[in-house]
């Protein structure tokens, strides 16, 4: 198992380097770019460190995740869902009824900065499942994909509240997602096989947001557009384009 993990990570030693087109087009970025991830740099100045502190204070409350399938040292804690250990929403019967039951869990009450970000800043009208995701030192998530190949699109948001040196999130055929230790938000295309390996001695805490845009489409587009131009400018400044 570890051989498979090592082989997967060794074969992707470099960070993902996206080629930005000259002109911005939301539809292209989200649905047609085939990009495995997209840095929402417009959110770079969020209080990620405070949110990290809130999550870190609850480390002993996390629940093991996929421990018997492809996770090891992988844990989660649900802020918004059915309870603090909410699994995939499709596993709870009638979807429509499940959605109606979603609520803030006790976790959110202990994390006011995180809750404020989710209610006031995150550009979606409805939250589905929102979780802190922990990968313990030495922990890993084996290569897997969450959607079939034909459903390529950027959708779920993965936010690094920290990302210690030595912890890598790798997309097959693309490379390492450039998560920042100081905090960074990325839209992800999880139809691509991916894997995480925390080879540091620090717990890695991310937050995954599943949401429905509803009437906040334009707010979301704004974040994506602003991020596109910021990312492109940074690449130019770094001499990468």
């Amino acid at each position, binding site marked *: 198992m570890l051989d498979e993990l090592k082989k997967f990570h060794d074969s992707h030693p470099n960070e993902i380097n996206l080629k930005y087109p000259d002109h911005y087009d939301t*539809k292209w970025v989200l649905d047609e770019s085939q990009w495995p991830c997209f840095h929402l740099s417009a959110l770079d100045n969020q209080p990620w460190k405070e949110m990290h502190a809130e999550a870190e204070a609850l480390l002993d409350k996390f629940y093991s995740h996929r421990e018997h399938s492809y996770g090891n040292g992988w844990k989660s804690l649900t802020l918004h869902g059915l309870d603090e250990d909410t699994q995939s929403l499709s596993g709870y019967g009638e979807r429509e009824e499940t959605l109606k039951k979603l609520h803030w869990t006790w976790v959110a009450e202990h994390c006011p900065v995180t809750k404020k970000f989710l209610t006031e800043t995150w550009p979606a009208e*409805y939250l589905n499942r929102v979780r802190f995701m922990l990968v313990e030192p030495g922990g890993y998530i084996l290569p897997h994909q969450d959607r079939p190949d034909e459903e390529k699109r950027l959708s779920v948001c993965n936010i690094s509240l920290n990302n210690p040196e030595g912890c890598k999130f790798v997309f097959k055929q693309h490379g390492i997602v450039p998560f920042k230790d100081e905090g960074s938000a990325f839209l992800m295309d999880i139809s691509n096989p991916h894997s995480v390996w925390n080879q540091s001695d620090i717990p890695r805490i991310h937050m995954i947001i599943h949401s*429905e845009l*509803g*009437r*906040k*489409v*334009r707010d979301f587009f704004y974040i994506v557009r602003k991020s596109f131009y910021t990312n492109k400018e940074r690449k130019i400044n770094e001499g990468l384009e």
Partner: protein
Amino acid sequence: MKDWNSLSADRYYDTISNSNEVGIGILDISRDIDSDFVAKRTFDITYLYVNRMLKMNLATYVGFEKRVERLLELAVDRNKKYCMIACQGLFLFRGPSLLVQSLEYAENNPNFFVMGHIMDKKKQHYITEGAYPGLHRQYLFVNLKKWIELGKPPFDEMGIFWERTPEYQNVEFSKDTIHSDYTPAWIKGAEGTSKHHITSDGSNWIDIAARNGIQIDNLDHSMRECKVFLYPYMNTKALETAWLDKKNPVVDTMDFNQKFWLRKLGDQEAIEKNRVYAFNTETLSSEGVRTNGKLVDYLFSAAAGFKPLAILNANGFHSGTEINYFDWCQASLDYKKHLLETWDGYDLDKWLLEHDDKYNFSSTFKGNYTEFWQQELKDFGGSLAFQRLWARYKNLRHNFHIIDIVNDYDKLFDMIDSVHGTKVIWTTNIWSSEMLQWNVEPEVLEEKWKGFKSRITDDLILYGLDYCSVDMYESIKNNVTHVRYK
């Protein structure tokens, strides 16, 4: 067709009766505009046209806000019956006419909720193909009483729903369309409801109206002709380029409305270079006497219409009074000189017709010389009174100077400072002309105005308007400034 080339209120609109029942709010869509420059300047120009309506006391400005419902609340707070929402980038260049027509509509349809651009485009945005119909956010005219009755519904932005699809009333459209197959003349409720994955701006208002048996009407052609929407979130970079460079080939690549407006401005700019104003658009005698009984010794005047004559007539002058005309346009000075040398004070309309090809007369008056001349005579107390006044006036000493008083005001003030006596200046609406306000942002204009203002001495008697179209005396006294963008 009248010219609408200044922020200043128009003398020929004196006849509009109004009770100021309308609040006007500007909808902030800067989030969607990918250029700080275009966002700022579209606000400036949207406010410019709104401001003209305010100066005519036709409406009250309620603010610049991101949400329609917030603007409506502000209008309610000001006890208004109606609220006109103008989106940032909407230019109400014939706003007074639109307002009058809208009030007529309200009178004929007392139970209306909202009038606006009904969009049944099925594709308001490329990601919202197949949407439930909505109302374009560029312009809304809302009956506040009905809005309150309906529970003060917010104006929803377009939405995408994968799972929590809203259930809206089915609707029926008029067979008539206004200008495209996606703009029906009206929309009203039909039997049943259905769920929608995609909604448009204002879809919930359509639904609420439909559920309450209220028909929503579109703007008719006459109303549409009163405004233009620049779609500042489309071709934004090109718009930024062409804002000042109106003849740039990039204009050809733009949306129809953008093209139309920039070409219109470009043409107007070219025309203004030698445009001549035979009459004034501002009221001749509204400011009254300002010299406190002293006869005017020196008048420094823009070379337009008969306003200088009216100022002299009101304050009094003598045979030694000297007139110094200034204008940035040589043609205006030439016209004034020509008129003084050749016209006897009778039948100006005939003189103008005779010289119609020689001068580029303002289109406001072109073809209607008799009508405007008769009004002028009325204002001066009849033909005989005018002719006597003209005879005295033309015998005065007249000097002509090419001066751009916005950018080269020192030249004017050096001249003013060099003479002594009762000195009067009339600057008309130069500082608040549409072209100037388009090309120079208010913050820059304000600095120029401050420079101009600093050269005004206590003994100079003022007629004319500042860069906000406020009388210069009031402007100096109250340190008037413009409405800021954010």
